[in-house]
């Protein structure tokens, strides 16, 4: 397969998000929303790409308690999240406020959408106790799992694992809207389009990928915090982050779906002791909290990151840090570094 003149060796795409560079700006989620969902009825609440503050309930609200995934080799059917739990989808009384001639008797208010939740409702609230509060940003999209429970749970066979890129894709013509996929997905990244009666989720930007252009969430990340490539290509950065330098880990690996989105786990400033002094040896983010998200390998990954930074501070070289620094932005795009503006459509 050739993309943009480069031969890629893999069959499974993977994303690596560097949580030490993610600044929660929502450019990835906005880029995705604008590209695929805006202007289509039934997609108002859909954000295939989201970024949430952790600790936090995220979107859908409390998704980590909803179940799904595999247990003992069997698909688990958990809760199907509601649009109210996904949140948002708001519309407002603009006409009344701007053109209604009622002056200050009315102000801008929501007229449609979720009552008390949004895709990023608990933004920047975090956890802990002042002055040792803590949080970090967690970007999420469909994990395009190697063992995708949505695919197995689908009663109509509408879902499949794409052979060329390893994306989990849906034949929306075959989807009858029974939402078993959504029940089975432990990450709760499958949305339901009430207007069309079908489920929808991240499509891996396949129309871009097949033209050699990186997905919008990757190419538009101003934090330069996300990498894409073939995880089974040993020369790729995503492979090296996960398997060679061991600085990236999956989210909730215990869901047993072999997700293909990985995370460089978050560092945090040293906490303060009770007397206000800096507790250099302490952890601001409780290690057990990180382990509850990323599994026990998170400690190794954090240890590796700290060691590599220490090398740099000693003036030594570090391949892993140089890769995360990303001297040339295009390296984050793997084999998908084509400039889309060059494309001329027939």
């Amino acid at each position, binding site marked *: 397969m050739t993309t943009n003149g480069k031969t890629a060796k893999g069959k499974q795409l993977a994303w690596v998000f560097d949580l*030490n*560079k993610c*600044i929660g700006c*929502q*450019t990835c*989620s*906005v*880029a995705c*929303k604008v590209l*695929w969902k805006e202007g289509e009825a039934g997609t108002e609440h859909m954000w295939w790409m989201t970024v949430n503050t952790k600790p936090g309930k995220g979107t859908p609200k409390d998704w980590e308690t909803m179940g799904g995934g595999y247990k003992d080799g069997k698909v688990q059917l958990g809760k199907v999240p509601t649009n109210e739990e996904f949140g*948002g989808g*708001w519309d407002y009384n*603009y006409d009344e406020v*701007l053109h209604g001639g009622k*002056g200050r008797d009315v*102000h*801008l208010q*929501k007229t449609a*959408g979720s009552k*008390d939740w*949004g*895709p*990023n409702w608990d*933004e*920047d609230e*975090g*956890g802990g106790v*002042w*002055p040792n*509060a803590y949080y970090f940003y967690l970007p999420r999209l469909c994990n395009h799992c190697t063992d995708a429970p949505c695919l*197995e749970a689908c009663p109509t066979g*509408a879902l499949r*694992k794409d*052979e*060329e890129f390893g994306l989990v894709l849906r*034949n929306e013509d*075959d989807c009858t809207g029974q939402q078993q996929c959504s029940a089975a997905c432990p990450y709760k990244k499958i949305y339901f389009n009430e207007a069309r009666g079908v489920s929808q989720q991240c*499509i891996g930007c*396949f*129309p871009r990928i*097949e033209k050699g252009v990186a997905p919008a969430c990757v*190419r*538009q990340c*101003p*934090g*330069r915090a996300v990498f894409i490539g073939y995880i089974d290509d040993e020369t790729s950065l995503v492979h090296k982050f996960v398997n060679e330098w061991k600085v990236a880990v999956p989210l909730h690996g215990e869901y047993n779906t072999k997700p293909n989105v990985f995370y460089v786990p*978050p560092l*945090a*400033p*040293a906490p*303060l002791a009770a007397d*206000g*002094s*800096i507790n250099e040896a302490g952890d601001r983010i409780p290690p057990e909290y990180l382990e509850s998200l990323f599994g026990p390998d998170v400690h190794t990954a954090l240890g590796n990151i700290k060691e590599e930074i220490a090398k740099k*501070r*000693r*003036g030594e070289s570090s391949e892993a840090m140089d890769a*995360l620094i990303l*001297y040339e932005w295009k390296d984050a795009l793997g084999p998908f570094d084509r400039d889309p*503006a060059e494309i001329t459509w027939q």
Partner: protein
Amino acid sequence: MTPRANASGNGSGRTEHYRDKWKWDQVTWGSHAVDCYPGGCPFRVYVRDGKIVREEQSGTLPVIQQGVPDMNPMGCQKGSCWGYQHTGPDRVTTPLKRVGERGEGKFEPVSWDEALGDIADAMLDACEDQGPESIITLMTPEVGAAPSRSHLGVLGSPLTDGNAEFQDFSPGYYTTWGKFNPVSTMDDWFLAELTLIWHCNPVYTNIQWFHFTLESRYNGGEVITIAPDYSPSSIHSDYHFPVRIGTDAALALAMCKTIIDEKLYNKKFVHEQTDLPMLVRTDTGRFLRGPEVNAGDRDDQFFWWDVKAQQAVPAPRGTLALGDVSPALEGTFKVRLVDGTDVEVQPVFQRLLKVLEDYTPEKAAKVCNIDAEAIRMIARKAATKRTKIFSGWNSGKYYHGDLMERAMALLLGLTANWGKQGTGTRSWSIFGFDGFAFLSAKGKPGQEAAREFQKQMISMRRMLSQDDPTMTLEMVLNRFQEMGGARVGGMGGMIPPAFLWYHQYGYKERWNKKEWSDQSMKRTFDEYYQEAMDKGWWDEFMAKTWEKTEPRVLFEAGGNVLRRHRGGQNTLLKELWPKLKMIVSVDFRINTTGLHSDYILPAAQHYEKLGQSMPSPHHLNFVFIDKAVEPPGDAKSDREIGQMLVKAIETRARERGIKESKGQNGASIVIEGAFDRATLNGYYENEEVEFDEALKDMSAYGILPPGASLEKLREIGTMRTQAWGIAGFGIAQASTIEPDKTHNPFRWHTEDKVPYPTLTRRAQFYIDHDWFIEAGEELPVHKENPNHGGDGEFRLTSGHPRWSVHSMNLTNNVIQNTHRGEPFIFMNDKDAAAKGIENGEPVTVHNEVGTMEIAAKLSPTVSPGQVILYNGFEPYQHKRWFSQSDVEPGMVKWLHMAGGYGHLTYRPWHWQPIPVDRAVAVEIDKVSA
């Protein structure tokens, strides 16, 4: 788990649907012509069937310096859905005339002729009634709106200073360096070994380039945040210093004390670059000055104590180089004056030592709630590493923010942390728009005329420095800009608006509230005001005009004064509005100000006209914005609106027999022929012709590389600038732009020993102005924040939001779904619990100034006693339309009316009183059911 189908894509019919959704039939360069500072993000705008479908960062910027990351893909979430605002629910597409009461929101569509005729008449009425001074045009942040203000040059009416309007000034940096705008390129931040994020929240406000700081950390650098709250930028730091609100000067001074006590300061830098060796008389606290030592000498000649010669010697005014002199930093010496008497003198450094006795880390720890050992640790790091202070415009918005900034600058000065790569601090600067600025000034079309104009400017430069050959280019330009403030003998220029506000907006009473002001003030605000007037410090800048001249017309283009103005609607609607016969809002949307206007004129959005993003040293690029689509309906580009208004003024003046606009100072401008003069007899009437001419001139001036033109920019989108030009504040960078290096300002000072544009020609930490001495602020000290607003138990801090550039993007439905979709205020979770306030519940924020209602958002990241309201929410988003600015008193620090002293004088965008809004005292209450 065998795939059911092998076809790529998302299933038969839908596969093509998705493929088609990404297609386009036209792609143009785009960016955003708004002061989100630094802006400058090159985008591409994709159009299908004549409609904008989306935009995406171009990702086309090159690596500048080997071993330093590139700037791609500059952009943010607002820019990535900007196109949605072209068709938003608040878009205006036809001129609207008010038919109900102001603020009622009843409008009817009218023709451009009717609207502009009415506005022109109101302006001419104002000229006849009170003079052109009564037409107030506000300088607001949307750079793209500037061309609609063309009437300024026709009627000679004043433009309010932007930095007073939106407070992006750094008074303490200005006091120190004679300029507030050191700005390195974004990539230079990668080279810092220590970054102190201090009075800034770049995770919200510098989305497109904050990665350089995080990448410096991966490169072995350290990052420390200093903020009262565990701010979003803190999460990616190595240490967080939760400083008590408003005590940053104490922290910085304790760091300085540690550095001096531990002899970690850089003596050579201090000797050469700063005023710390300059001699001060111990009897008067004033600098020893030329005429006191040598009859007939200059009053701005200062002295060092040469340790070798054991005598006071004049510090050269034309260079920073020490020569053979070895200036003393410590000690007390005797100097024989010209009248034969002896006086005792000390270097500023010696006096600094005395001041710093109050700032041992232990003493400071009690003031700012930071552990003393932690203060020592950060001080040692700053003294031994290439250090940058990542500041924004937060400090300048504190009552005593000038003291904080002077202390922060002192820290950098002691440690030689400016004027080399990877060091320094940041503020605001724009530069190099000469091509656009001088289109009509150059007199005729063509680049020969541009080169001729440039020659004239160079000879004017020589003329301006005739009285003092030691003046640097920067000082000459400052002098030129001072004159620009009072263009045509006081007409059509920028004015410091504090004096207008004092007399006409209703601030006199507030500013005189002793309990809301600096508690160490010895006299009332009015007394200082009177002294400033009596001494004529602000006479050239129309300060006295407003004692008798009432505003009649208010012209707001691309801004939203009723949201923005500290002191808010309670003063503006009560005091200013009734005096106004005509209020005009030029905008692409209806905002709260528009709802209170008499006319709303529909402007083109950013992808509907030719333009450029903010030309900032941060990126050093000319970033082109093409016209992707036509403006909808009757909307017009702001340059066209400006031209149409100029024509309307000319027409109505002719019909009414008005020949000229006469200023109160006796100057006058002939109205007839204004349009022809502004457009070189119509040559520039065409948008593309004008833009192309400006770009070609930019090459002629040497600012852009050879070959710049509209055609070239349509091809490549951006061009890296290669020289500063004179329009804007590029020369203040005082460094030569190099093609293969990051830019770091002040290298002409540190490397070439070129003097600073201050009174002492050094980075000046000692200000011996009478008022500064009276205030005890001749050197930086810490002063407690006054309780402006009342005695509420909470302190309201603020900052630019993540979700919007000012109020521009808050009505974008895509963006609304990325936050709570309604206004909110951050509050500490335990404070809220004590008051029984639940997360998301509405609360009342109130003080002696006003009351507003807003939803509480609870978090342990907020320090106890603090509430944070990221600004920008539209008043009309709140119940009864009262918002943040309605609880902000809008106080100014009396000391900033000081003048008549070296660099403490007005020039556009610089020294003047600006309102403060941080740490306002408020009360928070649950809204009772």
